[in-house]
């Protein structure tokens, strides 16, 4: 037990799985108290997303957003920057992607890449602002990124309300994007498989964003662990003074980290606009930006772990949707479960305490002195 717990990856994994398991257990207890038919409710929560094709689609769509946000957050957190700016970058990403999709008269082969590119650029620039403030003025990135989130949201609402919304529309939203501005289904039109494709198109909005997401995971991984910039980013995160002493340009790294993070948040926004909603609506992000923090946190800021935590987290959310439709439970229970997971995973003292208990109880048979010693070793 002690030996394999010494491996940090194993230890982290055990810790996260244990936290998720405990949170799900608490969720079940809540369900027992509240639901008329708790077993059915919890079954639909845990298994629901897999039961139908369209539900699998919903799960994956949601997960794509979460994975992009998780990647964005992992980048800034890796540099020990507490920026919560993903929300604002995502809103503006959705806005620019939407505007290009709606208005730029280009064929899909050009319009779609342009829309994605625009979202990435805007995310990059908006992310650079708190970076510049931090690097040059040492302005608290948490506060400035929160302010910029609201500013971005207001810009979005303003343009949507006054310029993008058709004048005669009854509620604040854009027209649906023309088909040149909608991302194609992820399943390619392979001759002979048109039937399969049609079924998928009817069932899900899962688009080629899936492939972009997969590419993004590897891009972030290589960026973080294989490029000079990634090295600088990680060294700044581990020990800023060491990086400076070694000759790393700290200011450049801080600004770029925030800005590059914005690229992926921008893509998350593009996915919301062009993949999921295919129009611009109010509250398009609905507080998803903070969820990226959770995804990155559970993945310990490792880009290769982000898809797994993103999918798991997306699964919980999708499961909650199914549960809500299939039972008397409301989907918000999953938020409580999420919160418990975060608290259990981030509490530095939980695992050492558990380990100590285990160690103590194991060595009980070997005498009191050994117990004390075992306890202190595990701690």
């Amino acid at each position, binding site marked *: 037990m002690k030996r394999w717990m010494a491996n940090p990856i194993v230890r982290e994994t055990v810790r996260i799985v244990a936290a998720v398991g405990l949170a799900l257990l608490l969720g079940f207890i809540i369900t027992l108290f*509240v639901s008329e038919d708790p077993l059915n409710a919890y079954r639909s929560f845990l298994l629901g997303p897999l039961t139908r094709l369209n539900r699998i689609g919903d799960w994956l769509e949601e997960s794509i957003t979460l994975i992009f946000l998780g990647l964005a957050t992992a980048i800034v957190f890796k540099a020990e920057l*507490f920026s919560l700016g993903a929300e604002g970058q995502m809103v503006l990403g959705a806005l620019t992607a939407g505007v290009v999709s709606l208005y730029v008269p280009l064929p899909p082969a050009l319009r779609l890449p342009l829309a994605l590119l625009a979202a990435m650029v805007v995310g990059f620039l908006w992310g650079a602002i708190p970076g510049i*403030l931090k690097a040059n*003025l*040492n*302005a*608290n990135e*948490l*506060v*400035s990124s*929160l*302010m*910029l989130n*609201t*500013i971005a949201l*207001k*810009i979005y*609402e*303003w343009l949507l*309300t*006054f310029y993008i919304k058709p004048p005669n529309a009854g509620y604040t939203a854009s027209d649906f994007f023309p088909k040149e501005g909608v991302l194609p289904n992820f399943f390619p039109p392979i001759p002979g498989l048109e039937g399969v494709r049609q079924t998928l198109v009817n069932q899900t909005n899962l688009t080629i964003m899936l492939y972009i997401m997969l590419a993004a995971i590897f891009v972030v991984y290589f960026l973080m662990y294989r490029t000079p910039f990634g090295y600088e980013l990680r060294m700044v995160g581990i020990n800023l003074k060491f990086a400076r002493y070694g000759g790393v340009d700290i200011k450049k790294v801080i600004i770029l980290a925030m800005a590059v993070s914005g690229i992926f948040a921008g893509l998350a926004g593009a996915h919301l606009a062009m993949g999921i909603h295919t129009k611009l609506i109010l509250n398009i992000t609905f*507080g998803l930006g*903070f969820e990226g*923090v*959770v995804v990155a*946190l559970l993945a310990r800021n490792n880009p290769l772990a982000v898809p797994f935590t993103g999918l798991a987290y997306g699964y919980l959310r999708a499961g909650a949707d199914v549960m809500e439709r299939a039972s008397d439970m*409301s989907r*918000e*229970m*999953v*938020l*409580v479960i*999420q*919160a*418990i997971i*975060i*608290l259990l995973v*981030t*509490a*530095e*003292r*939980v695992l050492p305490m558990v380990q100590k208990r285990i160690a103590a109880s194991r060595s009980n048979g070997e005498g009191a002195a050994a117990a004390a010693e075992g306890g202190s070793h595990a701690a």
Partner: protein
Amino acid sequence: MPLDVVLRGIFSALFAASVLRISTPVILPALGGLISDLAGSINIALEGTMLVSAFTGVVVSAYTQSVWLGLLAGILAGVALSALLAFFHLSMNTNIILAGIALNIMATGGTIFLLYILTGDKGNSSSLASGAVPVINIPLLKDIPFFGTVLSGHSIFTYLAFLLTWLVSVFLYKTRLGVHLRAVGENPEAAASLGINVKKVRAIALLLSGFLASLGGLNLSMAYLNIFQRDMTSGRGFIALAAIYLGGRKPLGTLIAAIIFGLADALGNQLGSLKIPSQLVQMIPYVATIVALVVYALRTQAQVRERMHKFQQREAEIAAKASGD
């Protein structure tokens, strides 16, 4: 609407009264956030604390048919959430920002979840006959033209907000605990060396911030509106944080900053009819907060540069004298 009508609207007593009304649910949590911020523990969970207390107040007052019990329960719930934050931050060494985010998520989810269980509705509590805090008409004052309209007829929370600004100020600057709290926030090592228990002081600060934030939440659900709506705080907890920084981390400054946010909000509503987009007006305080951060940083940098310049000048003078001899 023509311009003069709008202008008359803005310079009216009713408008001024509405600014106070809109500002109240920002002032109260901002004062709370100020206390914990000065103690060195930034409270991101103000938002969640407000939601939980707003919800609890409505539910308890509906079931007990007592406004006072509702208020009491709302406060207890808000303080309990802060206690949870303090526990995780101070006892479990959880990063306070992450713990705060978690509690916000829990508050959002938990309130909607319970609302649905209790009412079968996920949007609001309109099916519950919850209590409302009465408005206070101040005798004599209410009959004075203009000032009567501006200052009288608000809920008790609005008056409390101003009273509490003063009380918080007295607390922070005139009481032993308040002074210890600021010392802990600024130099915990020094405070500890004088026998001040840093963790205890921070825990108290977080509980107080929970108390004030819950007043803000109760204001929303039992005075501002008389129902609970899902996500009814809509970011006020974060605006409160901004107000602290815009207000220079002082009670009076925080009050003024919160009123500026309220003013921008109220103006936005008025100007909406004038083709001046309300969103742009509402954006102003956020931009101002960033500008305040920038100005503060520039000032600090200038001071360091100035010291260096002074030294160089002095050296140059000495060198000039030496070569002159």
